[in-house]
């Protein structure tokens, strides 16, 4: 590699990791409360589009972020109604929601593009970026530490974790499991949407159909790999980001070899870490619909 490769490599790593971190934190939050958040991919996609539309139609990156958060909150509430209030199967609902989101975002994107051609063009660089670091990167790292502190060092965090371990015991201790889980899932979805906004507003400044391309699922894997701990989940996201950054640099350095060998690097790295990390113990009550006895 050429001289001075380290800083660009680290920046590339952080760029790739940032959207994943928001989504991984959202998975950790939801699943610590006992709700599987398979819908992270769909909410991320919706947040990505909402953020871009917010920038195009209101002309400000931060309004775009707020719009993305709002869409995340609404979708989170919808998911919470179906999976917590009713409650329906969390995995099936999440999968269906992802497919729904793919179709709806593609449809809305086309409508928006017909209304305003600027939706197709690159949006302006987000203000507040310093030395190639977007505010999203800093926010992601700050949120990671905050969530770890909140989850493991505060009373409300303990209550959330108790719902994930045994919802009935949490109820017996005076926690309104349904309402609390609905609130948590709604907040988690807002975080997922923020991950989407980090992708479109903070990174590539554009949107295409299915732009997330499974990044929500990678975040899901990072949360599992990080054993539902915000710090470890973020570390897993950074590792994946480093793998992506390394893949293209290795391709550039290793001329003559099939590029697909190098493109496998991030996925092989993730597999390796999952294998080395061993089986983590998920919150005991995660995925089980809570019905009051």
């Amino acid at each position, binding site marked *: 590699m050429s001289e001075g490769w380290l800083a660009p490599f680290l920046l590339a790593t952080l760029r790739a990791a940032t959207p994943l971190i928001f989504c991984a934190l959202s998975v950790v939050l939801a699943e610590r409360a006992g709700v599987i958040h398979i819908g992270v991919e769909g909410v991320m996609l919706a947040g990505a589009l909402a953020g871009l539309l917010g920038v195009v139609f209101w002309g400000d990156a931060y309004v775009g972020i707020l719009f993305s958060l709002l869409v995340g909150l609404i979708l989170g509430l919808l998911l919470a109604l179906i999976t917590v209030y009713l409650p329906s199967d969390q995995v099936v609902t999440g999968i269906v929601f992802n497919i729904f989101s793919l179709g709806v975002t593609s449809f809305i994107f086309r409508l928006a593009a017909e209304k305003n051609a600027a939706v197709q063009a*690159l949006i302006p660089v987000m203000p507040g970026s310093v030395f190639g670091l977007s505010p999203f990167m800093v926010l992601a790292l700050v949120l990671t530490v905050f969530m770890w502190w909140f989850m493991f060092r505060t009373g409300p965090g303990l209550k959330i974790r108790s719902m994930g371990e045994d919802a009935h015991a949490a109820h017996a201790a005076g926690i309104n499991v349904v309402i609390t889980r609905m609130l948590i899932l709604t907040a988690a979805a807002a975080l997922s949407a923020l991950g989407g906004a980090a992708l479109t507003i903070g990174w590539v400044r554009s949107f295409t159909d299915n732009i997330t391309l499974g990044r929500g699922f990678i975040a899901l894997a990072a949360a599992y790999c990080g054993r539902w701990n915000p710090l470890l989940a973020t570390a897993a996201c950074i590792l994946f980001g480093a793998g992506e950054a390394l893949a293209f640099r290795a391709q*550039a350095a290793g001329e*003559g070899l099939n590029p697909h060998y190098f493109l496998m690097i991030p996925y092989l790295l993730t597999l390796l870490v999952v294998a080395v990390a061993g089986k983590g113990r998920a919150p005991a009550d995660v995925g089980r619909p809570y019905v009051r006895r």
Partner: protein
Amino acid sequence: MRKRHFSFIALLLVLGLFTVMVLGCPAPADDAVAEPDPVEPDPVRVGAIYSIPDPARGGGWDRAQYAGLKTLETEFGWELSIAEAVEFPKLAETAAEFAERGFDIVIFTSSAHVDAWKEVAPQYPDTWFLLMSVTETLPESDNVAAWVPDMYVYGTMVGALAAMASETGTIGAIGGMPIPALKLMYSGIIEGAKAINPDSEVLVDWVGDWVDVPKHSEVTRLQIERGADVIFAVTGPGTKGVLDGAEAGNALVIGYAADWYDDAPGAILTSVLVDTPPMYRELAEAFNAGTLTKGINQLTAVNFTLADFRGKLPDAEAQIKETIAKIQRGEIQIPRVMHELE
């Protein structure tokens, strides 16, 4: 719990019913009594198949084809139906579906569609199956034709243009996947650049897919780190990532096949256009006249033109245009050399 489910489903049903009623309400009737239309022959029906979503705004080739396809509708009054995001295993099925439904012409828009084209065409002799991309052979039937761009010549024009526009002498060439058509084109870029500047270097990188915008952005940024100041990319919707990366690194991008200026005014130097409307007019006129025949129609240098520079490189623009014109007229001879581009 059952009560909750019942309430939720009932709510959804009511909302659904309301939506259907609102959308289904007929528009207010016009007072004037409509004259019955004179009997007109059924329009020619064309089905076009894309493997990417949103082709009107997809990669350069897709956009260029879309503009050509639209001339069939607007200039000839043909009925156009586009199937987009068709996965490769479903190509033959989709084409067969068009033929079964009585479409007169089915158009494949990518060189990756060749196998499906060869599979389906012999099964429906009453339908024309056309390929608008690179192929060297035709299916075993008479109802087929192809319009094939000479990708190598196109590449030489891009290479020459990039070499004249580059200050560093390093040119970036990014591709979705190393398919034969792109290896041919990128070999042309290398030779075209050498014809102008023998010391020029062309960096060729493959992203591994056509649609991942962030990955395309990162590959572009990496090429700029390695010295490229002029970038050319052939890919799908991922092109937006290339534009983002180029703008971030203050590099210029040469647009592929269609005019990309509106997507990133700050990054686009110009585009080397594939002029598709004349190609589709030729097809429509031949079909209407009953003279459409089996064969491969080559698109050569005269079909490739430069888009407006819009003030980019004002000092070099005239010289670049003159050089490209010389390549078109054959006054600059560029050898045909294939490079190993894995």
